[in-house]
C-alpha cells in the first residue's frame, strides 16, 4: 500500500489546481473506465432519483396538470384556468389568504422577534443554556401533540380562561377557538410555543459568531445597552436573521398539523390557511382540481419565501 502511495505523490504534485471532484480529476488515473464512467456513477444516485422522481416529482407535475381539470374523484373535465378564476372569487379562499398572511406576520412578530430577544437575553447568562433548553423542548414535540395540549389550554373551560378568571380579568375570558380572528391568533400563540426555541438556537449561533474585537472596540468607545444591540449586535446578526426569517415564513406557510387537530380549520372554515384549504377541498369536498390549484398557489408563495435564504448557500447559486 505504501508503495502505490509513493508512486502517487509525483502525480499529485503535477496537478496544480485541486478540484472538488476526485472522480473526474483522476480520469487518466488508475480507476479509469472500470467504475468511473458517468453512467455507472449515476447508478449511485438511482435509488434516490427513483424515490423522489416517482413519489414527489411526478406527483408535482401531475398536480400542476390536474389543476386544469374539474375533478371530483370520479369524473374529470378539462376546464383550463377556471379553477384559478374561481380562486380569485372564492370568499373562503379570501379568508384563508387573510389567515395565511396573519400567520406569516404573527410568526415574524412572535417566534422570530421573541426568539431574538430570548437569545440576546440568555447569551452568556448564568443558567442561560438551561433556559434555552426549556424553550427548545416543545420543538421536539409534534404539531399534533402540541395541538392536543393547547386545546386543553384554549377551550372555553380551559386553562387560559381559568387563569384570567383567577386574576380578576373574567371580562377577557372568551371562547378562544370559536370566533374569528381570536381563533387564528390563539393558534399563532400555540405555534409560537412550539417554534420559538429553534429560532433562539439559531440566533445564539449567530451571536457566538460575532467577532470579539468588534464588541470590545465598541465597549472601549463607551457603547452599551440598547445602542450596542441596535448598532453592533443587530447588524452583525443580519445573515442569520435572513435565514431565520425565511425558515420561519416557510414553516408558518406549511403549518398544518397544529391547526387541523385544534380546529380542523373551523368553525365554518374561519381558521383555515391555504395549507388547510387545499386539504379540505381535495380530500373532504373532493374538489381535486380546485385543491391542486390552491396547492400550486401555496407552492409559489413557499418557494418565493425559501428563495430568501436558499440562494445564499446553494451549489452553483449566487453566494455573495
Amino acid at each position, binding site marked *: 500500500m505504501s508503495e502505490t502511495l509513493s508512486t502517487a505523490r509525483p502525480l499529485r504534485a503535477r496537478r496544480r489546481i485541486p478540484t472538488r471532484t476526485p472522480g473526474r480529476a483522476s480520469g487518466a488515473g488508475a480507476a479509469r473506465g472500470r467504475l468511473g464512467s458517468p453512467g455507472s456513477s449515476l447508478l449511485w444516485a438511482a435509488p*434516490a432519483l427513483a424515490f*423522489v422522481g416517482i413519489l414527489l*416529482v411526478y406527483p408535482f407535475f*401531475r398536480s400542476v396538470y390536474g389543476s386544469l381539470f374539474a375533478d371530483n374523484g370520479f369524473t374529470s373535465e378539462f376546464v383550463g384556468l377556471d379553477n384559478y378564476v374561481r380562486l380569485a372569487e372564492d370568499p373562503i379562499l379570501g379568508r384563508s389568504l387573510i389567515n395565511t398572511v396573519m400567520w406569516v406576520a404573527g410568526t415574524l412578530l412572535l417566534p422570530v422577534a421573541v426568539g431574538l430577544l430570548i437569545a440576546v437575553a440568555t447569551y452568556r447568562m448564568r443558567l442561560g443554556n438551561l433556559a434555552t433548553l426549556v424553550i427548545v423542548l416543545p420543538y421536539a414535540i409534534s404539531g399534533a*401533540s402540541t395541538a392536543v395540549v393547547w386545546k386543553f389550554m384554549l377551550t372555553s373551560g380551559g386553562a387560559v380562561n381559568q387563569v384570567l378568571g383567577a386574576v380578576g380579568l373574567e371580562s377577557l375570558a372568551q371562547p378562544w377557538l370559536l370566533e374569528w380572528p381570536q381563533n387564528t391568533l390563539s393558534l399563532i400563540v400555540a405555534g409560537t410555543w412550539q417554534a420559538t426555541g429553534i429560532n433562539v438556537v439559531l440566533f445564539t449561533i449567530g451571536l457566538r459568531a460575532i467577532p470579539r474585537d468588534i464588541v470590545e472596540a465598541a465597549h472601549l468607545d463607551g457603547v452599551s445597552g440598547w445602542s450596542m444591540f441596535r448598532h453592533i449586535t443587530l447588524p452583525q446578526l443580519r445573515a442569520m436573521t435572513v435565514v431565520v426569517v425565511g425558515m420561519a415564513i416557510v414553516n408558518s406557510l406549511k403549518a*398544518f398539523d397544529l391547526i387541523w*387537530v385544534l380546529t380542523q380549520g373551523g368553525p365554518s372554515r374561519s381558521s383555515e390557511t391555504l395549507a388547510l384549504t387545499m386539504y379540505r377541498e381535495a380530500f373532504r369536498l373532493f374538489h*381535486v382540481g380546485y385543491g391542486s390549484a390552491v396547492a400550486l398557489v401555496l407552492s409559489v408563495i*413557499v418557494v418565493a419565501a425559501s428563495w430568501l435564504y436558499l440562494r445564499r448557500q446553494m*451549489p452553483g447559486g449566487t453566494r455573495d
Partner: protein
Amino acid sequence: MGRALRNLFVAGCVLLWLIPLYLLIVNALTPAGGYTGTPDWAPRGFAVLDNLRIAWSEAGVGESFLVSLLYAVVCGAVAVLVAAMAAFAVVVLPVPRPAFWFWLIYSGTLFPLQMFLAPLFGLYADANLYDTRLGLMLVYVAWAAPFAFFLVRNQMTTMPPEITEAAMLDGASFRRIFWRIHVPLMSSGLGAAFIFQFTAVWNDLLLGITLSRSPEVQPVMAALMTLNSAYASSGPPVILAGALIVSVPTLLVFLLFRGLFLRGVTAIAR
C-alpha cells in the same frame, strides 16, 4: 437594573413555556372519570398508569406506536442510506451536471406536501398501496431522503478530495471507498441526518391521514388525532396521556442527542 430586567424576562419566558408542559403532566395524572371540567393545577390522584393503559390499548395508540417506530427507524435509515449514495455520486463521482441532479433531489423538500398529495392518493389507489404499511414506508423514504441528501452532501463537500484520490490510486473500487472511507468518516453527519428524519417521520400527520385509514396501518399522530375526537366527551386525562406517550420517543431522542439533532436543523443556516 438592566440585568435584573433581563433575568426577570428570561424567568418569565421559561415559566410561560413550562406551564403547558406542567399542566399536561398534572392532568394526565387525574383519574379519567374524575375530571371536573376545569384543569387541575396540582396533582389530584395518581391515575397516570390507568390513563396511559387506556390510551395505549383501548384507544389503539399502542398499536400505532409500534408501527410508527417501524416507519421512523426503517424509513429514516433507508432515506439516509439512499441520500448518502446520491450525495456520493454528486460530490465524489464524475456525474455529468451535478448541480442539476442536486436540485432535482433537493426540490423534494422545497414544496409543501399539499403539492404531492392528490396525485399520490390516485397513484396509491391504482397501485393498491393505499392503506398499506409498504405504501406509507415508500412515501416516507421519498419524503425524508431530499433533506437527508442536503445534510450529507453539505458535509461531504468538506472532505478533502485527496482522501478519495489516494484510495483510487490504490485501486479501491467506488463501493469500497464509499463503505470504508466516506461512511465511517461521516458517521456523525449520517447520525444527525438519521435523527432528524426519524423525528420528521415520527411526527408526520398529513401523509398518515391521507394515505391510510385502518388502525393497523395508521401512524401514531393519526392515532392521537382519532383519540382526541373519540375521547372528547370523557375529558382530557386520557387524551393528554396519549399526547404524553407519542411525545416520549422524540423527547428522548432530543434530550439524548441534542447536539446531533440541532445540527440537522442548523445546517441550513451555515
